[in-house]
Each structure stands twice: as structure tokens, then as C-alpha cells.
């Protein structure tokens, strides 16, 4: 029986989010909160491995109370159990403080059921860093395998996993001891449609929620804003480009002008 934990995050959909041009802050109301797309693939992979090898999939998130919705989404995808850590003390955490808090929660989960494998999305679409997953692995002192786009084998009995890690121009096949942590690429799987029983279960599901006080051996100085070495000093709107020349005339004229612009770079075609 494998125990796999997927770490997930609820994020604003940055593709459609609007910015307040005066304050350069996000207008959160303009974008729906969604399960981070990479994390959906992490949960999907965990569920597939559970189906293949047998086991239990837990999901863990840190966030404000509405993030329960993201856990419910994971239950729809086939996760068995959900855990959430939620406390003002976690607010303002950068990647270092986030990996610290999540690690403390993982240690608590592992006490009750030892963890064989942790799967995270490659990155979140709001933070865009990809640093939390490897941070958790370091804190737990287990090997991080980043950019995984295929799981070849997980062998709990013999204590190893074999995966493909994406490289810029291909992939490498890596064997790692268990437990270990994967961060996964989107192309690792296609998200399955949630079966009806999962949807019903998800609708009623209430995750286990812990505050900072519920976690053990926590150094409060390492939590939230206080535990974050990086600070955002300034935000500004990216410089607006000046805009280009619009070609006019008939279609043929436009294409001819474009053609001469392209062919000016004749070294590319000779």
C-alpha cells in the first residue's frame, strides 16, 4: 500500500486576471480561484499510481478557508483524504516559509500514516517559481525529482522509483530511493473526467484543518512573512511597447510589403 501525498494550491486564474493600474495590485474579484493547473496533474498522477499499485492518496494545501474548494476538486479527481493548514501566522509566506509550513504538516500526516511519495505540480501559475517542491524535499531530506513527465515504476517493496525527468531537449531516466518527491510537468498525463461518485463525495467532503498550533515542533519565526527572507519592494506595470507600423492597402499590397520586409533578411533564406 502506497501512501502518496499531493501538495496543491488554490490560485487566481492569472490568464484572465485584471490589474488595478493605479495600485498595481491584482483585482482578485476579476479572476476565479482555481486549482493550480500543474497541481491537477500531480493529483491525477497520484490517483493513477494508486490504481496501479494500490494505496491511499492524500492532498495537502496551505491557504485561507476558501481554499477548501481546491481540496474538493482533488477529491473529485480521486484523492481519498484532504488536509489544509490555515492560519494568519502563515500569511505572507515566500517559498522558504511555505516549504517550512508544508513540511511541518507533512510530518504530522506521516506520523499517522508514513508517506512513500510526495507529488507537487512543477510550479504555481501565480507564484511561478517552482521552488516549494524542492524545498520540501530538502527539509524532509528526501531526493527531489523535478520536472517529471513520466513515472515508469514505483516499487515500494524494493524501495525505489524510476521516472523520466524532462530536459530542455529530451529527458533523462532516473532511479531514486523511496521516499522521494516529484514535481510534475503538465504532459505527464491527461486529466480524467471525474466519475459521479467522486463528485458526490467531493460535495460533502470536509478536509482536516490545522492551525499553526496544531502542528508540532514549530518555530514560529520561520512562518509567514516573518519567516520569509525575500520581500517585494516594488511593483510596477511592465513598460508598454510603442506599437508597430500597420500595413495598409489591399491584401496583395499588404502581403507584398510584408514580403519585402521579410526578405530584407536574405541571409536567412540563402
Amino acid at each position, binding site marked *: 500500500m502506497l501512501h502518496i501525498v499531493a501538495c496543491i494550491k488554490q490560485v487566481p486564474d*492569472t*490568464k484572465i486576471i485584471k*490589474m488595478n493600474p493605479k495600485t*498595481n495590485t*491584482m483585482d482578485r474579484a476579476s479572476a476565479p480561484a482555481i486549482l493550480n493547473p500543474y497541481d491537477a496533474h500531480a493529483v491525477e498522477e497520484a490517483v493513477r499510481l494508486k490504481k496501479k499499485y494500490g494505496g491511499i492518496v492524500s492532498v495537502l494545501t496551505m491557504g485561507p478557508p476558501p481554499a477548501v474548494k481546491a481540496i474538493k476538486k482533488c477529491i473529485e479527481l480521486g484523492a481519498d483524504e484532504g488536509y489544509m493548514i490555515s492560519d494568519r501566522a502563515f500569511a505572507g509566506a*515566500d*517559498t*522558504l516559509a511555505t516549504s517550512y509550513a508544508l513540511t511541518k504538516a507533512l510530518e504530522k500526516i506521516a506520523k499517522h500514516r508514513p508517506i512513500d511519495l510526495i507529488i507537487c505540480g512543477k510550479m504555481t*501559475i*501565480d507564484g*511561478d*517559481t*517552482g*521552488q516549494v517542491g*524542492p524545498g520540501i*524535499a*530538502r527539509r524532509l531530506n*528526501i*531526493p*527531489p525529482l*523535478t*520536472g517529471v513527465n513520466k513515472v515508469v515504476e514505483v516499487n515500494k517493496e524494493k524501495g525505489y522509483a524510476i521516472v523520466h525527468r524532462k530536459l*530542455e*531537449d*529530451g529527458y*533523462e*531516466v532516473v*532511479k*531514486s*530511493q523511496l521516499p*522521494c518527491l516529484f514535481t510534475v510537468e503538465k504532459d505527464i498525463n491527461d486529466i480524467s473526467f471525474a466519475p459521479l461518485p467522486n463528485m458526490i463525495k467531493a460535495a460533502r467532503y470536509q478536509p482536516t484543518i490545522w492551525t499553526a498550533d496544531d502542528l508540532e515542533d514549530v518555530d514560529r519565526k520561520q512562518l509567514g512573512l516573518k519567516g520569509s*527572507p*525575500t*520581500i*517585494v*519592494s*516594488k*511593483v*510596477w*506595470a*511592465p513598460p508598454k511597447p*510603442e*506599437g*508597430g*507600423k*500597420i*500595413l495598409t492597402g489591399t*491584401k496583395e499590397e*499588404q*502581403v*507584398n510589403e*510584408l*514580403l519585402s*520586409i*521579410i*526578405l530584407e533578411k*536574405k541571409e*536567412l*533564406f*540563402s
Partner: protein
Amino acid sequence: MNFDDYRGIWIYIEVKDGQIAPVSLELLGAGRVLADKRKTELAGVFIGSGVKALAPTLFQYGADVVYVYDDPIFEHYRTEPYMRALLDCCHKHKPEVILYGATPSGKDLASAIATDLPTGLTADTTILDIEEDTGLLLASRPAFGGNIMATILCKKYRPQMATVRPKVMKALPPDPSRTGRVVEEHIELHEEEMRTKVLQIVRETAKKVRIDEADIVVAGGKGMGSKEGFQLIHQLAEVLGGAVGASRDVVEAGWIDHHHQVGQTGVTVTPKIYFAIGISGAIQHVVGMQNSDLIIAINKDPNAPIFQSCHYGIVGDAFEIVPLLIERLKEEIPKIKAAADVKEEIRHA
């Protein structure tokens, strides 16, 4: 923590197939500026197997010092041995800044080091500066999917660390007369203690034009309507001998593999010519292509933001414009080729 103990700007030098990764040379260029401002040394940290011979190249590109960890255990990048070597180097020589390429292995290593030291780490930086007197690193990056730029500081910890996007910084022209100091380091590591093993490396894109190396990139967006409509992008790329790019929605719709995605969560490209066809031009896309030499946009919507980010634009239907362009290119390109061949013959005559 006494900040005065921490001196020098370091670049993690990445090795790929026995060569120095281009991003590492770009970072030496950026690091040189920071080191000069701080009147301190620029160092490369070189971890690998058989890499020592390449150290002089780093001097030519701006390094004053190269710390070398040369051992067969470093043959392939793996977090554990690389992290142990770099941590060893940090503890011995105490840098004030470490920069890494924002590549798969650079990000992997930087995240591990930041957690262990611990210190702050800024991801995917695109603008770097340093305060001359305090040594505070100003690392700026697109945030929230590129909707804003943010400057990130790490005031209370040293070293300050950032990963930097490839192709954003400029390498210095190599100066063969520049030399420096090689410091050979060693750390006791045993293969049997390593918890991961690289079994095989598979290169996949040998046949295809790599999008981040192509001189011409033809990118299509949702405006192409369907996977079938997107074929027009492939056709234009083929005629031009270029690579195919795509916006995020096209990748998410499954019209093309995400290796082709240009933008914040995809690849950054800087080709000689970039075509954005049926792409609205959301900032997330633009940050991935804005440094291209020539950007050409074709879009039906005259108000599409892409026209703000291009050099030349055509407001029109791609399905009318592009086939016409393909037809004309098919006529003209062979003429250019023929003319070039004639020149070549004259030269040899």
C-alpha cells in the same frame, strides 16, 4: 550574520554535453556589471566531470576566479552531489550573490541551496541591479503571469540568490587576453551513498528545429480556430524553414505539444523574425518573445494588444493573408537561393 564576511558575485556554471551552457556565459556578462559596481570579484562555480579544462573560457567571458569541483561523481546533474559541492563552496568562500540560469537543473539546484543555507531566492529574474554601498541585490521579475513586474529583495540573509531567465542577459564578447585564478576544490562523496542514479539520457528534438534556437519562429494562437486551422502555421513555418510556436491557450486546447509554448510559462525565444498569427498578445505571451529582432503580427482584431508589441502588423484574416504570403514566398525564396548560389560560384571561380 556579519554581511562584511560575504564578498563576491558568483555564477553557477552549468555544463551541458561537455559544453558551458550559453546562459552561464550570459550570467557572467550580467555578473561582471554587478561585481564592478561592488568593486569585488566575479567568480564561476564549476561543478562537473572533466570540466577543469574549460575554466579559461570563463575568464574570457568575464570571470576573475573559477572554483572547480571536478569529479566523476558529477558526470550528470543530480541534486544531491551538486548541492553538497556548492554548499561546501559557499561555507568556505562566502559569496554575497549567487546567480543561476533559470534552467531545469539551475532552478532545481538553487531551490535546494536556498533551503539548506537558508536564504532568499528570486525565480526567473529578468532585470538585475545592485546597490553599490549596501550590496543589496535588486532582482526584478514578471509576477502574476506577467501582469506586473516586481522587484524582490533579500535584506537579512547572505548570499542573495536569483535564477535568471536564459536569453535575457547579454554575454560579453570573449576577450582571449583575460585570465584569472583557478581554485580547485574537493569534497568527499561516495557513489554508494547517492540516493539517485541517472540511468539514461535521451535527446528527443534532434530532428526538429528547436524553437529556442530557431532564426525564424512562426507562432499561432486561438485565432487559428481549430487544430486543422493551426496547420496553416506549420505550412508557413515550413516554407520559411522556421520553428512553430504557440500561445498558451493553443497548447491547452491540445492543438500542439507544450514544447512549442512561447511565453511566461513556456519558452523564451529571441529569433531574427517572430510571427504572431491569431495571437491576441497577452502580456504572458509577449514576455516570451519581446526581444525578437523583428516581430510581425497578423490579427483580425484591430484592437488586439499584439499590435502594441510588434514591429509590423496586418489587420486581417490569417486564412486570407497567410496562404497568399506562402504563395509569394514560394516564388521569391528560390530566387534568393539561386542568387546566393551564383555569388558562391563567382567566388570559387
